[in-house]
């Protein structure tokens, strides 16, 4: 009953604040308008405990609608200038207000203040976000608020976060018992930054050799609790880090795979050295860009789903380009690798320049849809970005589709037949020319899908394909020409291998080591990881 009343009261207050400004303490108002950042931050911290009528003020500062006019702190609301101290509307135009600059420090203080406010009145989701914010950024002024909130909190996940936030402040307490409790509570954290907080508790002052300095922390039991907490956090962090490295390896592998899958068909299965493969990726990415713009213009309400709509578009546009390439140039060059290499290289230059002329040399902006942006916290200390998770899933989806097409459909059977023995396939009535065209089209279409995935993670520009052509050939050759399974194992293997190397040696050396490894591997085993077996393998 009481809480309902309280909510009503808050609601009224908020409504009142919307029309006429509630009055804030005068020193807070001067502080907010101060040009000194320290004073402003102190004032913002004071806002948190000033109660709910502070919310619109924080909102205004955050959105840049806060400034000074005539020596007074003012808020711009609906193109009216409101004096913060008195709440009256001034006869001034918003253009006359000098907006106060915010910087990262002010912004952090604002976020903390907002979280502090949300802690008592927000919905479950808002309180969770607020608690997460406070876990990393707290200020001693919030301690009473945190204690109150932690005591009243019903949701366990939020309460745990609040206890951590509270413990961070209490670590500075003068009471050894409170410090010990804080150190114990912090042992439940998975945040490496907490280790830095706890470190001083287990360290000694610099002393002379033979006579170590005094402990920075006087109480024995606090030291023990801190040491235990550090060990617990380090265990958790190390585990999370290994999982994260494996995931980033898988993610890199999925990108390599998407870039290389199309090539695994055109080069691997059909034997065409297609130097324009990278440009087919580019075509797919540009198709995605066009779909995005179409959605932005005509269906802004469904904008988040443009990527789904782009899947068939990217496939068919790239496939069409591939089929045109095959019909007009490549079909005259089967069995002449050198000529087809040069011809496709020429085509790649034509495609790059065509894109540059039509779309300009600039990179294009592609926005991740909301469901692909941000990250998800799998468990404390490990959060994985959504776009990489989706792309990993997408690569598996494309792979399964391609495998089913090659193994389970009539067309797939024809493709395999033609690549294994062209004259024999022709003899039994397989239309080899048509099969070549379709197979090349499918390879190109899959490259288009790769371009769609890349557009969500990397640059989209006319020359984007150039960066992937070497990686793609690397994957196909390493995996074994003519094998989808080879491409898959090579892509994921290379991904995880280079991520572990990178963590160890840095990106530049890792890239060199990977290339050296591939050269040695190919020397030792020219047929790749998976070799074709049977009679046609000798060809």
């Amino acid at each position: 009953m009481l809480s309902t009343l309280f909510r009503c009261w808050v609601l009224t207050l908020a409504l009142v604040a919307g029309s006429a400004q509630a009055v804030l303490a005068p020193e807070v108002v001067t502080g907010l308008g101060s040009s000194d950042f320290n004073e402003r931050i102190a004032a913002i911290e004071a806002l948190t405990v000033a109660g709910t009528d502070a919310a619109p003020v924080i909102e205004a500062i955050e959105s840049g609608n806060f400034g000074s006019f005539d020596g007074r702190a003012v808020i711009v609301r609906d193109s009216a200038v409101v004096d913060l101290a008195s709440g009256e509307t001034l006869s001034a135009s918003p253009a006359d207000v000098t907006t106060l600059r915010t910087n990262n420090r002010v912004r952090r203080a604002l976020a903390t203040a907002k979280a502090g406010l949300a802690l008592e009145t927000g919905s479950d989701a808002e309180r969770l976000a607020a608690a997460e914010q406070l876990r990393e950024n707290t200020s001693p002024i919030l301690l009473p608020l945190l204690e109150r909130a932690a005591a009243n909190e019903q949701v366990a996940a939020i309460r745990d976060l609040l206890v951590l936030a509270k413990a961070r402040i209490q670590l500075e307490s003068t009471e050894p018992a409170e410090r010990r409790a804080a150190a114990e509570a912090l042992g439940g954290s998975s945040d490496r930054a907490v280790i830095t907080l706890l470190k001083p508790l287990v360290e000694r002052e610099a002393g002379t050799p033979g006579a170590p300095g005094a402990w920075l922390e006087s109480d024995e039991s606090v030291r023990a609790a801190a040491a235990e907490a550090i060990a617990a956090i380090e265990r958790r962090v190390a585990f999370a880090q290994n999982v994260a490295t494996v995931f980033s390896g898988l993610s890199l592998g999925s990108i390599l795979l998407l870039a290389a899958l199309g090539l695994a068909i055109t080069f691997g299965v059909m034997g065409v050295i297609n130097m324009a493969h990278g440009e087919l990726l580019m075509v797919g990415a540009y198709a995605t860009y066009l779909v995005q713009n179409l959605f932005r213009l005509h269906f802004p309400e469904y904008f988040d789903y443009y990527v789904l709509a782009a899947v068939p578009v990217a496939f068919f546009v790239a496939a069409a380009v591939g089929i045109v390439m095959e019909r007009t140039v490549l079909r005259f060059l089967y069995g002449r690798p050198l000529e087809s290499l040069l011809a496709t290289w020429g085509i790649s230059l034509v495609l790059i320049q065509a894109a540059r002329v039509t779309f300009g040399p600039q990179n294009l902006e592609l926005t991740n849809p909301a469901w692909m942006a941000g990250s998800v916290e799998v468990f404390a200390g490990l959060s994985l970005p959504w776009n990489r998770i989706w792309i990993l899933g997408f690569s598996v989806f494309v792979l399964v589709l391609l495998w089913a097409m090659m193994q389970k459909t009539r067309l797939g059977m024809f493709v395999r037949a033609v690549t294994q023995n062209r004259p024999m396939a022709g003899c039994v009535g397989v239309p080899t020319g048509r099969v070549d065209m379709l197979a090349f089209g499918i390879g190109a279409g899959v490259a288009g899908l790769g371009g769609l995935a890349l557009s969500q993670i990397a640059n989209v520009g006319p020359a984007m394909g150039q960066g992937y052509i070497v990686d793609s050939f690397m994957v196909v050759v390493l995996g074994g020409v003519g094998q989808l399974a080879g491409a898959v194992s090579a892509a994921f293997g290379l991904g995880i291998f280079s991520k572990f190397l990178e963590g160890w040696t840095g990106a530049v050396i890792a890239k060199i080591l990977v290339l050296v490894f591939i050269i040695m591997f190919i020397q030792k085993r020219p047929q790749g990881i998976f070799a074709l077996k049977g009679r046609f393998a000798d060809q």
Partner: protein
Amino acid sequence: MQTRRTFIKSLVLSASIAAIGMPMAASAADTIKVGVLHSLSGTMAISETALKNVALMTIEEINAAGGVLGKKLEPVVVDPASNWPLFAERARQLISQDKVSVVFGCWTSVSRKSVLPVFKELNSLLFYPVQYEGEELEKNVFYTGAAPNQQAIPATEYLMSPEGGGAKRFVLLGTDYVYPRTTNKILRAFLHSKGVKDSDIMEEYTPFGHSDYQTIIANIKKFSAGGKTAVISTINGDSNVPFYRELGNAGLKATDVPVVAFSVGEEELRGVDTKPLLGHLAAWNYFMSVENPENKAFIAKYKAWAKANNVPNADTVVTNDPMEATYVGIHMWKQAVEKAGTTDTDKVIAAMGGQTFKAPSGYTLTMDKTNHHLHKPVLIGEVTADGQFDVVWETKEPIRAQPWSPFIKGNESKQGL
């Protein structure tokens, strides 16, 4: 017999030379040729195309106002295609074949290093419009971009100040070539001088065109747990887009770990959704968002030029620091030529020192009397949601360049320059 044939031969030869030379001489009489040497294809086309555009716009503007010394300027545009040796070849072609009086061009330090011998040998003039690592001072080059003390050092000082977040630990992150390596060498020495220990500095490089920043971002996260951290990025070109995307997705916000970039401007942000990047920083000597009449006119002129010349996406073109530096450079060259009364290289070089120009940055820039660098203001801006920068800090007045950084050993004797 023998002599007569040789005579006829030489006669024919000289006649043909005269025939070729004649129209050239005629056109040279009423126009002054200026070279524009920027990559219009290849990896650097992204950045350099805009510089070619702004150079052509400025030349048109000068011609509309009556030209230089009563003559119209005639631009000669060549495309070195992001190919460093080709830069030298094209520069030679511009100077000895097209007989240009001055060349405006280059972006990367490696392209500048490649054309230097040509300009020295043929005693011609190059205006270089991009911030760079310093450690160079050539008689034939005027540097209208920033030296390290006009960009890198003030930005680092800002990060260490309470206003900038009071960073204690620094990640120096760059692309693996001469500019980032030299800049980071200077910065490391500078940080040492401020009492930052080696254990609080993490230095990482990635190859050109690197696109997978997962490991590096994870490492930055790990490193930042040890205290207030800031990232100083000298990542160049395309790689910035995946870097900032990864940064946004990993939830590393500017309020926790701010990133200050030296090679990211309005043009580079055109390919990025900047909403997750709010609050990250860049240090330059000009931002498009600077408010003053000169800048307003500059932006309007460029937009109109882009529209009239059918530049792709003409309605969303932006201006940036190297474009402003190109604009200032061409105007200063014009003033120097008018002061010297000739386009002769040595006389123009002598006339350049002390030239001033009211630049779009809102400051009156001065060409230093001796060191071929501009005195420039330093601006630090925060990324806003619309891909622009909001200035959060600026110097009170333009700073004199120190091309030879005092933080590199062996430069002590060169500080007077």
